[in-house]
């Protein structure tokens, strides 16, 4: 395993620890430190992925370990952006564990030698798969925001002011985070479907084939379209939206996992 990857994992782990500490102790200093550490890790992760891409001669998202690593990278990116905007103690503690998990899985599934299926040798690969992962990352963040909203709302309505009440951000803040990540995720998802259509045209001669992954992503996209509509038209009942976004996230996971039919290379 290359040393950049080890350094990356080291920084991510330290960042996760500091986030959890800051979350538990409610001290801002740990959260700031965590952001710095994760930022450093992100830098090395980028170097690693770029190096990997150059070494293998293609954008590193052609097999499972590569995509897991890239997915972790996308989540870290959204985490950093969200953390700079909203310095919430809680984000790191909830988001970073997934990053670490993905990195571990990627390491475990690592293949030194692999051949790219001929279908993946295309410029569209870069664009389509990277926006897909950014969409996943955005929706994941929205899922977390929805969870936080529901938990905090429960604390506030139950009128028992306990552990989580002190540590979660204001309802309004959770709602804002939900809204922002929704828009980012939705735009990315739309781009994913569009670029996928164009790539499909190039690779298989058809814009749309109704293969399992395409269908699943259309369903996911529709759920989020519903949420966007809800948001824009007003009458936004945050709690209901939170539930729907959890459903949307489940749909997203299925979309990510479905690798049959035309999309069967992973």
């Amino acid at each position, binding site marked *: 395993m290359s040393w950049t990857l080890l350094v990356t994992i080291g920084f991510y782990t330290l960042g996760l620890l500091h986030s959890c500490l800051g979350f538990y102790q*409610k*001290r801002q200093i740990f959260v700031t430190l965590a952001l710095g550490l994760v930022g450093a890790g992100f830098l090395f992760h980028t170097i690693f992925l770029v190096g990997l891409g150059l070494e293998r001669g293609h954008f590193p998202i052609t097999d499972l370990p590569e995509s897991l690593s890239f997915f972790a990278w996308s989540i870290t990116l959204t985490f950093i952006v969200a953390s700079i905007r909203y310095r919430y103690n809680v984000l790191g503690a909830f988001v970073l564990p997934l990053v670490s998990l993905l990195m571990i899985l990627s390491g475990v599934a690592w293949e030194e030698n692999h051949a790219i299926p001929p279908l993946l040798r295309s410029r569209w690969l870069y664009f389509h798969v990277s926006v897909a992962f950014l969409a996943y990352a955005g929706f994941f963040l929205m899922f977390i925001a929805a969870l936080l909203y529901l938990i*905090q709302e429960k604390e*506030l*309505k139950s*009128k*028992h*002011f*306990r552990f989580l*009440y*002190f540590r979660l951000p*204001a*309802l*309004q*803040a959770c709602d*804002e985070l939900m809204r922002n990540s929704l828009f980012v995720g939705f735009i990315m998802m739309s781009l994913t479907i569009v670029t996928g259509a164009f790539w499909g045209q190039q690779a298989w001669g058809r814009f749309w084939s109704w293969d399992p992954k395409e269908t699943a992503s259309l369903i996911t996209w529709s759920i989020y379209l519903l949420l966007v509509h809800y948001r824009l038209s*007003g*009458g*936004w*009942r*945050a*709690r*209901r939206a939170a539930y729907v976004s959890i459903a949307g996230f489940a749909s997203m996971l299925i979309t990510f996992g479905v690798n049959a039919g035309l999309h069967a290379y992973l």
Partner: protein
Amino acid sequence: MSDLVLIGLNHRTAGVEKRERAALPATEVPGALADLTARPGIQEALILSTCNRVEIVSRVDETSSAFGVLESFLAEVSGLPQTELADSLYRYAGNLAVQHVFRVTSSLDSMILGEPQILGQVKSAYGLAVEAGASGTVLNNLFQAAFRVAKRVRSETSIGEYSVSVSSAAVELARKILGNLGSKVILIVGAGKMGEGTVRHLADGGAGSIFVTNRSAEAAGELAERFHGTAVPFDQLRYWLAHSDIIIVSTAAPNVIIDRGMVASAMHIRRNRPIVFIDMSVPRNVDPAVSDIDNAFCYDIDDLGAVVEANLEERRGAAAVAEKLVHQETEAFWARMKSMDVAPMVVEVRRRIEEVCHSELERYLKRNGPRDPKEIKELEIMVSRIAGKMSHPLVTQIKSAHEDPTHERALLTVVSRLFRFHKDPG
């Protein structure tokens, strides 16, 4: 030799009547300090008198006799018989006195842990002592250190952070729901005292616009004026419910003024934007069922009490950290103070020896007439060297007395006696 002692009573050791009698108004403190420092064995003194405690801190010649002097002094100024006073008094000496001063100033001994007023009160007491000339190097160092420690406690622990009053708890809840309150609309229903405190907190925290309504238009107008808000007619309550984000209800009405139905329709008009009710009235004026409505939050006085209690619990956690900090600072301060103590003694020992040597030389020169300036110079050098050689072993012993605390006191007392130090210089 000097020692540090402290006596006092506080809200835990004495009831309010005793504390009232023992308390000294600020005008009487300078006189009392002058009286106190004139008494035998009392070198420096400071009197702290607040509604929750009366304490006297003093640098004294000798600890055990000093307690007696301070206690009889307090009995005199308070008019309380000494036996009655003795029941409530706590006594501290040496580093325990330092620790107590640090704890009190950092609000760790206060009735409400982490309260901010005590620091100001200690600073005033210190100011009075300095003005009256009752505070010298030791107390000056002690209290300046105490202010630094209090600042550290405040900034390094979260002891001051949680709302422990009902009004600030209300604001905290509003923030937890609505986020930043800057653009939010507040409606005050009624003119109750409790409501006022909350509005003041909200206004200070930078809330948006304030509207006031009351069955009596006059009362509404008066309150509105006080908060730079706008009075609105009571019969428009339904309209204002729909257009406000935070509603504070504090009236004398014995029944529900705002029911579930009213809030449901308000929410409909508001497109479900969140709304927070703070019902400070007893009996409640807001239907508790309002809480069941999506995005509507209603808190009564008991709920606010629960927030305060939860916050106090958090403060207690922070207090544990603060106590450790204070303990460390006490040790550091005490070590510094001990090392400082010998400095004046060393200076005095050297001075006395040199004085004797030089005065003898002068007498000799006077008796035996003028001499060659070079010879005089040499004699002066010789005399200085004698003085130095005599004082050097003494000074070394005094300074190293620190390393051996058991013999230290004995040694320093002997040195004091030998050189007949009556009152310690410095």
